[in-house]
């Protein structure tokens, strides 16, 4: 399909008109030039509601080409309704190939997870972002947070982390855990679990973040330093499980809890459906003697 050629749906390739795509790409270039910096952009009203991934969709629509292969996941799975919906949207408006295999994708649009399979140079991962401002809950005023970023005044977030340790003994943020990008910008990595934060650091892929409702775009170029905030004596830690995936036996992936009966029975399975599937296809299995779930479900850190 040529650009600006109304396809069968009557819309341009990937829905957005070329002017809009250019506007978004200019914003993306600025974002890549200043890793972690939130670039305001003229977010359009899309056929999906704000809050449902319009930012991610606009970013993907601006960078996708007819030879791209798109993977869309939500909560790590290709089959959740929202991921299905967005994949269908691009299949209809761009006619591009789609895949569920992380290794086959050139563009991965994601909500709330980074795939377990390490990404490669040349891949683009697009994050759906509900709230781009990491300090928003501490400071509601945009005019003020903008100044704080410009002047590198990040005392406020450190106060919040200090307070967490004071109240809970450890930092109480478990997702959308704030990071320092390139030793300069404080960034919200989107509501990925903190388990996924280490994957941000020096990732070979290009990482793009789109917040449609809040109208901000930001980016982390490949191989950029990304460090989760912590204190020297309270270092950042990821979640751990006592168990492995009940299907493929993986011990290194983020596990979803599935309730199996009304007596507290539960099991844990890989959140990343593709990762689990690949392991199963390679003959990996969970050991037969899995400890019972309820009691052993949480391991205390350290």
């Amino acid at each position, binding site marked *: 399909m040529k650009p600006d050629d109304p396809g069968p749906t009557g819309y341009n390739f990937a829905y957005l008109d070329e002017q809009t795509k250019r506007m978004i790409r200019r914003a993306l270039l600025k974002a890549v030039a200043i890793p972690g910096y939130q670039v305001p952009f*003229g977010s359009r009203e899309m056929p999906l509601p704000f809050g449902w991934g319009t930012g991610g969709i606009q970013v993907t629509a601006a960078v996708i080409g007819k030879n791209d292969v798109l993977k869309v996941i939500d909560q790590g799975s290709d089959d959740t*309704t929202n991921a299905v919906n967005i994949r269908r949207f691009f299949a209809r408006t761009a006619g591009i190939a789609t895949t569920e295999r992380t290794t086959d994708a050139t563009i991965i649009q994601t909500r709330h997870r980074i795939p377990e399979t390490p990404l490669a140079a040349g891949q683009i991962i697009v994050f759906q972002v509900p709230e781009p401002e990491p300090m928003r809950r501490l400071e509601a005023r*945009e005019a003020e947070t903008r100044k704080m970023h410009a002047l590198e005044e990040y005392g406020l977030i450190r106060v919040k982390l200090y307070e967490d340790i004071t109240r809970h003994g450890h930092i109480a943020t478990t997702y959308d855990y704030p990071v320092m990008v390139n030793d300069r910008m404080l960034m919200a990595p989107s509501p990925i679990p903190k*388990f996924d934060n280490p994957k941000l650091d020096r990732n070979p892929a290009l990482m793009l973040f789109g917040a449609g409702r809040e109208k*901000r775009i930001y980016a982390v170029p490949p191989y950029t330093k990304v460090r989760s905030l912590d204190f020297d004596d309270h270092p950042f830690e990821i*979640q751990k499980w006592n168990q492995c995936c009940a299907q493929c036996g993986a011990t290194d992936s983020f596990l979803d809890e599935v309730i199996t009966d009304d007596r507290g029975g539960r099991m844990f399975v890989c959140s990343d459906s593709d990762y689990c599937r690949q392991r199963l296809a390679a003959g990996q299995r969970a050991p037969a003697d899995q400890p019972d779930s309820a009691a052993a*479900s949480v391991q*205390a850190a350290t």
Partner: protein
Amino acid sequence: MYVAVKGGETAILNSYRLLAEERRGDCSIPELTLTQIRQQMGLAVDRVMTEGSLYDPELAALAVKQARGDLIEAIFLLRAYRTTLPRLCYSLPIDTARMTLRRRISATFKDLPGGQILGPTYDYTQRLLDFSLAAGSSVVEPVPAATAKQEPVAAPRVVDLLNHEGLIEPEAPESGDPVPRDLTREPLTFPAERALRLQNLARGDEGFLLGMGYSTQRGYSHTHPFTGEIRLGEVAVEIVPEELGFAIEIGEITVTECQMVNQFAGSKTEPPRFTRGYGLTFGHCERKAMAMALVDRSLRAAELGETVSAPAQMPEFVLSHSDNVEASGFVQHLKLPHYVDFQSELELVRKMRARTPEHKAS
């Protein structure tokens, strides 16, 4: 053995079918036509056009039909459609002084040039359900010809009258008359100049603005408003094509305009004058135009040297939350799966609870 549930796509397709059934309702009942909606649900159409930022009664009626009367959903449909429309040119600003008036009232003067025209309003009806409408056989008596057809009367705007005496602050464009920024093309940033604020308010949710406007009347920063004037009628839309170099009329639209006259302000160098609030909507959305005017004035608090203490005076608060398409999207996005993040929280809470006996012991 546990098998992950698949079939999201099938579920979605089935949901479309169920929705189509619900939308159509009982097939033995005649289907609504767009003409019926335009004619008999005009105020719904007007609201959708106003908050959808698109003047097209036919499309708005279609949106209302497709959304089964859910106006916020209809507004969303119209906005999404608007995104795809090419822009041909900019019109001249409409001149409400040249409006063909169908309704014109002022609370500030008992009588004034052009008179008070009540027009089609619910204001003086008694809110008694009219069961003759239920029977579907209501007969509307035509308005007598003498009063129905009026010669255009000179009806200068009240604020212009006050302006002659220098009693009200002049409404002058900024020096250089800069082109206003387009809120549908650029993100809102703060501080937001008045032109941008007015755009935001024009597109803003009527209910939200009504509540905000109401709060100013109840003491959350009072601006002592008087309704200077409300006008309803048709105005010409004109463009100046490059090849011609002069203005031509390409059509007309119906608008409702409200000008509030507010608390006078003065300073050591300036004598006291009344200040203004402005509201404008497509069609006949009077409540919205009035609420908008109240909030517009309230948001000018800082500029007029007033103490900012109430939410209706805070641009960041009002303008960030006025858009019902944004608000609806974000509120309802909570329906999307959040179980991965919830998993993280579960783990934390379990861990904290497990430690509590230790704390108590030490």
